[in-house]
């Protein structure tokens, strides 16, 4: 495992990505200390330009942009991470059962998975939030519901290959029960592709969350990056920073997650990249 950390951390792209993500997570964790005032509080006159009294200026109602970004980081990261964890848990369950038992179970579960995959994911998410009424929880549910199918397929494929390895047969011959074999022998060996897919899913979740908030379907009492862009959209020509700053933050965050995810992939499967 030492080789893994060495390969992972020495990769300059990973280092850059981790640096930015660390920064964002620190902001998110310390949001109430860095910006003690509510991000919805009016603190100055509207449309104050950046680099004045406030680092990134104020919006159309005179709210501090920095406070919005910091609290938005908390919302975006929390929702993205919880939604991803839920999607990974559910997708792993479905994929593992389908791959391990095969036959009819596999057919049934994979048809359901394909059913979810054929619905355009963003429109599906909009419908889900609309039905559930906008709130943090419904965002998580909507994002998780549209994100689990790829996880299920990755896990199923891995379980299928690991299942045919001889050590699994050895466990059967030793008399181990199905559940013990699945949890103890098979799943631990599917971890590396799961980690990579899962980490990239976080980026996707941030994008969906921002897009939903942009459309006004976000949690009403939570500040988020997408909401900031949505609110500043009408004033693009008069106050460009209202849209640009949160947009750039989303871009860099998603890029960082992708860099780290790719780095994870390279470090977990060094041969793939090198040979």
């Amino acid at each position, binding site marked *: 495992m030492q080789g893994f950390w060495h390969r992972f951390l020495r990769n300059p792209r990973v280092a850059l990505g981790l640096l930015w993500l660390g920064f964002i997570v620190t902001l998110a964790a310390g949001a109430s200390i860095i910006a003690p005032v509510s991000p919805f509080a009016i603190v100055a006159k509207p449309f104050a330009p950046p680099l004045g009294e406030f680092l990134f200026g104020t919006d159309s109602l005179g709210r501090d942009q920095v406070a919005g970004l910091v609290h938005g980081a908390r919302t975006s990261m929390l929702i993205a991470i919880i939604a991803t964890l839920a999607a990974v848990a559910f997708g792993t369950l479905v994929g593992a059962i389908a791959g391990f038992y095969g036959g009819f179970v596999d057919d049934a579960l994979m048809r359901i998975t394909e059913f979810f995959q054929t619905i355009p994911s963003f429109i599906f998410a909009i419908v889900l939030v609309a039905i559930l009424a906008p709130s943090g929880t419904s965002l998580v549910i909507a994002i998780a519901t549209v994100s689990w199918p790829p996880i299920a397929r990755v896990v199923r494929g891995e379980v299928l290959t690991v299942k045919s390895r*001889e050590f699994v047969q050895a466990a*059967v011959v*030793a008399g181990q029960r*199905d559940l013990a074999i699945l949890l103890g022998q098979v799943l631990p060996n599917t971890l590396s592709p799961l980690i990579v897919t899962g980490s990239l899913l976080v980026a996707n979740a941030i994008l969906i969350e921002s897009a939903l908030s942009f459309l006004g379907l976000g949690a009403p009492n939570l500040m988020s990056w997408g909401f900031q862009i949505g609110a500043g959209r009408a004033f693009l020509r008069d106050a460009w920073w209202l849209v640009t700053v949160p947009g750039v933050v989303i871009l860099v965050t998603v890029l960082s997650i992708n860099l780290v995810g790719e780095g994870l992939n390279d470090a977990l499967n*060094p041969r793939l990249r090198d040979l």
Partner: protein
Amino acid sequence: MSEHVLRIENLTVSLPSWADRPHAVNGVSLEVMRKEILCVVGESGSGKSVMAKSILRLLPEPHVRVTGGRVLYEGQDLLALPADGIRSVRGGRIAMIFQEPMVALNPLMPVGRQTDEIIEVHTRLRPAERRKRIVEVFGDVRLPEPERILSSYPHELSGGQRQRVMIAMALVLEPALIIADEPTTALDVTTQAQILKLLRELQARHGTAIMFITHDFGVVAEIAERVAVMREGALVEHGRAEDILLRPQHPYTRALIAAVPSLVPRHVLREGETQQTKRNLLTISDLEKTYAARGGAFSMTRERVRAVAGVNLAVPKGRSLALVGESGSGKSTLARCIVGLERPDRGAILLEGTDIAGLSRTRMRPYRKALQMVFQDPFASLNPRWRVGDIIAQGPIVNGTPQKTALGEARELLQLVGLEPKAADRYPHEFSGGQRQRIGIARALAVKPKLIIADEPVSALDVSVQKQVLDLLDDLRTTFDLSMLFITHDLRVAAHVCEEIAVMKDGAIVEQGSTADIFARPQHDYTKALLASVPGRDWQSKCPAR
């Protein structure tokens, strides 16, 4: 005879930084003479394949690359040639035959067209002339009905035919040198014997030099005129075949040759100790297993493969029975049916009088302890995320032994199979193939079974390690009073550990009896063919080293 085709001078090939040693090939100098067969022998990791690949610059650069030396062909250094220079040498002047013909041939192109491409690239012959040449060379390698084979796809041919096509492709431009990298390793023994014979004939007729890479001294004895022995990237010894095979000088060569198991059965049943004198531990009667090969979505007919077709077999208590057969004979399926990894369609498997055929997983559980399996691939058969101790203790823990006792016993077992007890705290990747197979054996022994089914347990190992593992299995058999069903394709291995032998072909047992009897007086034609195909038979009988 003194004239050389290829001259390798001080060749050094570097490995990437994460490899376990800096050089794959380290300062090798070697010559291939005109019209000779040079065998390069070595165990896995000896650098023999890398050396062969670097001649035609087929290394996975930039990680594995030549860092020193020259490869001289007709006076020019192949390593210094520009890209199109080496392309005209490849296939045209120096051809290569690979180990696995199924992978080396393009599955989407008829084999005739693939051969045609080589001529098209290297010559200005017209299509009709090219076709004539291909038919001629296909006939040369004894492919039946060359005209028909021409338009066949690789999957329509047998393994032996595919390798013949590969040889035809190598021969088609009459190269000066053919490099053959383990060309018979993936083939069955009987096919291997035919291919070796063919290569010898062709070499005599065309006068092509052949560099033949192999790990098998039997094959060397069959085909070589000169032999070069490699170890860890360096040349250990080289010279005329008779000298090396009968009077090896270097201790490593001697050890390698001594490790090749003899064809003379070691365990001979004493007078009067016939098959009936011992009670049978396992009796299999009329066992059948048919696989429904899945046809295409629209095909109306369902193909059926009878993997096991009415097998009757008995494993006597305390004996070791070899189940010998070529690939596809159904021997592995039979083993999987016995340990309950597969459900037979029909027939009975009596374990000390109880029928265990087709029991459900739950009802099979009480009998698991009696039947254990040693698997073929030591790299796939151990869970990479478990400690060795836990892997061995797994069986006893499942069967209700307290964890602490089971782990203690695992350490004792490790010692018994020749590893240190502290190996229990390490992970499988820290061990070599042979050591891993010892761990696999310890795992099988942990539940104190009555019968061990070993499915090709040594076929993935090098000769020297093979012998140690075989001897270990043999010792443990007496220590634990085990019976053994030993599945193998290698008659030498069977002769080394088993006093009884059963020959399997197309899902049925064609002959069964004591190893000594069957080796001396084979009855069935197939058994005779198998025995006649063992490479290096004659050499071993006159080898003074044993």
